[in-house]
């Protein structure tokens, strides 16, 4: 059985199922984060009068958008793939297949949609003169690779555990917003009180938020030590997730 053909088949099924029956089709995937971006920027820009600190700082909308899309890819892929095994119980009970494929397909489909959205928004922002360095876009896209690995590692772990503990997905629904607000997505590190500024490096997404800004907005600097740490982390998480998944995989059928 060719795993790549199978993955592609599940990926295309997942993409189609997300848009099948919806009026706007695939457009919705781009529209939804755009709308969310519009609402949050309105609130932060005009209600809270948020400004990005520092001289020559980028516009808040660009500042937010650059970190917000990668975060959406991460959080949405994790949330959706957690139930990937459980949702396919009927298939798993009848057909022998490498079950990782189910998780990989969901994570990949989320990333495909949100990377497309990311590119589109970057182009739109450039067109409106928000000062995006489009030349660095390929580098920024490269950054999605470790982010994908990190998401996949978490997703494998969660999807496997979800089979046994069904409330995991509900818990994730609570934990993910918490993670979003503790990462420097809506704010810059410099706005934090002194004692939290270094602590925030412990957040796995901090590196990504700041690196996207460094690459695309030339805000802050790209830190190679942190890149190393992030790469190490994503490899460890991926291996750990895979180990747990392999360990529990033979018993899925018993608990589904």
């Amino acid at each position, binding site marked *: 059985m060719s795993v790549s*053909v199978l993955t592609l088949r599940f990926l295309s099924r997942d993409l189609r199922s997300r848009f099948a029956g919806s009026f706007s089709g695939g457009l919705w995937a781009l529209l939804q984060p755009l709308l969310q971006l519009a609402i949050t920027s309105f609130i932060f820009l005009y209600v809270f009068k948020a400004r990005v600190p520092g001289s020559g700082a980028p516009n808040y909308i660009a500042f937010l958008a650059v970190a917000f899309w990668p975060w959406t890819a991460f959080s949405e892929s994790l949330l959706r793939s957690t139930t990937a095994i459980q949702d396919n119980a009927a*298939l798993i009970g009848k*057909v022998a297949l490498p079950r990782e494929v189910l998780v990989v397909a969901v994570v990949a489909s989320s990333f495909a949609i949100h990377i497309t959205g990311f590119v589109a928004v970057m182009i739109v922002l450039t067109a409106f003169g928000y000062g995006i360095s489009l030349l660095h876009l390929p580098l920024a896209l490269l950054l999605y690779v470790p982010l994908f690995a990190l998401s996949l590692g978490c997703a494998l772990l969660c999807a496997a555990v979800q089979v*046994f*503990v069904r409330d995991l997905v509900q818990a994730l629904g609570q934990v993910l917003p918490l993670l979003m607000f503790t990462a420097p997505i809506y704010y810059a590190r410099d706005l934090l009180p002194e004692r939290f500024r270094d602590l925030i490096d412990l957040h796995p997404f901090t590196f990504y938020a700041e690196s996207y800004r460094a690459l695309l907005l030339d805000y802050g600097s790209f830190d190679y030590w942190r890149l190393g740490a992030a790469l190490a982390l994503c490899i460890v998480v991926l291996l750990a997730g895979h180990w747990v998944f392999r360990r529990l995989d033979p*018993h899925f059928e018993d608990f589904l």
Partner: protein
Amino acid sequence: MTQVLVEARGLGKAYPKVHRSGDRMRALGRLLLTGNDRDRIDVLRGVNLEVRRGESLGLIGENGAGKSTLLKLITGVLTPTTGSVRVTGEIGALLELGAGFHPEYSGRDNVAMAAALHGFSSAELRERLPEIIAFADIGDYIDEPVKHYSSGMVVRLGFAIVAALKPDLLITDEVLAVGDESFQKKCVQWIENYLDGGGTLILVSHSMYHVQKLCRHACWLRGGEVAMSGDVFDVTQAYLAYHERKSAPTRSRSEAAQAGHEFSVLGIALNESESERPLMLEFGDVLRVRVRVRSRDGRVPCVMIGVVRADGTPVYGVSTEIDSASPHRVAEDEYLCEIEFGSLELLPGNYSVRVHPMDTEGVRVFDTLERSLTIRGASREFGLVRLAHHWVHGSRDER
């Protein structure tokens, strides 16, 4: 020696006990830490099985005997708890209804997915798709979501996919029962062709007819263990006899109640055999039925002996009173009566010999006892018995 396709050694499967919510958590912890979970219920124990290329094996057994679990272990859907199973070659499996269809997607989409699961490339799929759709023969439903299908349509589609795959080993789990007559025929025909072409089959069915028709070997699972395996006729007969014995407790209770009755049957011997195993005869063989009847008061009983088909339809019945015969007295309160059917013209199938002791006048029935009888052989005649006949316009060689 032909190639061994499936080899199971000491195969066992246990399911976890998950009654309370805490159980799942505990099982998760144990699995992560030690890799196994002790708190389990055995559904299959020590199964040894070998299926060679070109063989056809019927799996029979009661509900919950572990048949489906065994199939799932062979297909690799389940992981064995103990022992091992080794499978060579491509498996086409139809496990229960649906074969893993997703209810929300169209039939066409599910076919594509099933094809990908079986390792088809897109080109191969395009080539085979018309063939699959033609075999399933469900018309425009192919583009409807599977959730709108009738169970027969689901099976049709599932079988069509497997038929297109032409697997080395075909595994089906009680799917023939769902399709309608014509589709069942189509499937049976396909399976027969497939077997003739050197295919290998494992079939689970409660229909002994299908098992005997399609399989040469059978394996009887009882309570998760192999109770018997071997020639399909021997195993299916033993299995049917077991079912009769299972319904016997109610009978023995009534026997106990009848111990005080005036007449009761002490034993039946078919062709000198008192065994509970079904008697096997060929068409036209001699059948002798010997019955021992206890008569409480020593009065002469009237004995009714007859043959009924497996489903209870009476074929023929006669009593000592009708024929003015009389049982032979062997003891103070015991009578013996024996009847011989010189040439039993029952057509091949499963029957029972049924015996009732009645009072001297042949009016009241006191007891009922049955023994299974199987007529083996192949005949294309219809019905239960061969009626004496000849073609009036003469046979061909007379001309």
